């Protein structure tokens, strides 16, 4: 494996893992989870099924 191949692989992984880590962190961060829990644990409204 050439050096430029290693660099491309590591760079690609870094971009994707960075994007994945950032978006998952934001999705699962306590602030957002609390907001969601408020929405999703409330009793069904207007005849909704949970």
């Amino acid at each position, binding site marked *: 494996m050439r050096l*430029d191949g290693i660099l491309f692989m590591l760079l690609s992984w870094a971009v994707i893992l960075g994007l994945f880590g950032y978006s998952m962190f934001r999705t699962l961060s306590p602030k957002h989870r609390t907001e969601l829990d408020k929405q999703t644990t409330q009793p069904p409204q207007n005849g*909704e*099924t949970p």
Partner: protein
Amino acid sequence: MSKQRWGSRLGVILAVAGSAVGLGNFLRFPGVAANNGGGAFMIPYFISFFLLGLPLMWIEWTIGRFGGGFGHSTAPGVFDTMWQKNRFVKYFGVMGIFGPVVIFSYYIYVESWLLGYSVFALIGRYADCTDLESMRAFLTGYQSLAGTEHFPAGTAYLFFIITFAINIIVLSFGISRGIERCCKWGLPLLLVIAIILVIRVLTLGTPDPARPENNVLKGLGFLWNPQWAALKKPEVWLAAAGQIFFTLSVGFGVILTYASYLRRNDDVALSGLTAAATNEMAEVVLGGSLVIPAAFAFFGAAGIQSIADQNIFDLGFLTMPLILGQMAYGQIFGFLWFFLLFIAGVTSSISLAQPAIAFMEDEFNLTRREAAVLFAVVTFLLCQPVIFFLGNGVLGEMDFWGTTVCLVVFATIEVILFGWVFGIDRAWTELHAGSDIRIPRIYRFIIKYITPLMLLTILATWIFNDWKKQLLLEGVEEANRPYILITRVGLLGLFVFLLLMVRIVWRRRPEATCPETDQ
């Protein structure tokens, strides 16, 4: 009729990611990348991801949630609410039901092979197949439904019934208790299995000390060493755009349906990004570290090119079992490989079923169970030609209409509708309603101009290169032509039937009502 909802935000993200992560992530991507410039391929790949894949992902999430507010979970209703002045746009939405039903009808059969091979791997049923020819004979014997020395007659049909039943059971439990629960368990399990396999492959080192040049590092080099000259070839850029397009599950109408079960102010921007990033991680980081490095370590430079050129069926069902069979504990790793693909298949196939089921629930007021049973009856019948006339080109014909045609045309309609008819200002506001992130403003320009242009280029190139050949059955054996033509007529009949259903539903319904205000 009560409106179903997702139980949690992570649940819908995993369901969308589960829909996107499929066989293509592990089998198609490595071959396409290796054959189109290696590491250099990642430049057009990432450009396509940011200019085509991500915008389409956001568009489907946004219009799905918008249509869901009007009580529509499928494309005909969603398109109609987006362009209420146009009486015909709802008929274009039929592709968002037709395509997934057609794909489901053959995909589920391929999925059942994966279940069958998981069992075969575990009990060592193909252990005596030591070359490609014997593995091919094993697969052909399995597909023919005839008994061989490896299994009794009808084994493939039995696994098909089991796989079909699993899907329908999950679907009958609905969005939250069925699909969401399945994906919440399935996708993490899939990622864990993939990580185990990647660790095993990356620690293979040099399996045969007599051939030190055949090692995993060189296999990674085969995939990642950039070939700069490839960037000058338009077909490499087209291959990258095609790979991004197919891998993200956009253009099926599936994400649109999933997003319709969100509430008005649930985030779609961050959720879409998370689902796309999860799929990319499974494809590039995990998928790119499995097949090619393992194949290189065992077959070396001489054999790797022919392996990279293989179609995904040969790669998955012939080559990988041979490679994994040569490792210590090969039966276990063989099982993990096929079970990984089976899980990926289930999370994708249940998503393909959802638009049709949602259409019956929304527009005909059927209960979830009734809709699932009706869907099961129709698709079970549609599966039979695929199973019994597999060798006559039926599957390829369904794949062409369900995947290639519907996907590209549907996505093109979606993006034009969103950026031009709905209007980019309104679309931008809708996309950011309840959003947890701000999308860079450059995406207003990208969504309105760049993404449609890229889609139209893909559409034009494919029409020019492939569609004429496919439509005129060029290169098809004379004996297979009647099967393919009958399939084509049957698919046309299904499409017309769905058009009529939409017409009947809209004739008897009142004008669109105000959006739900359940927040």
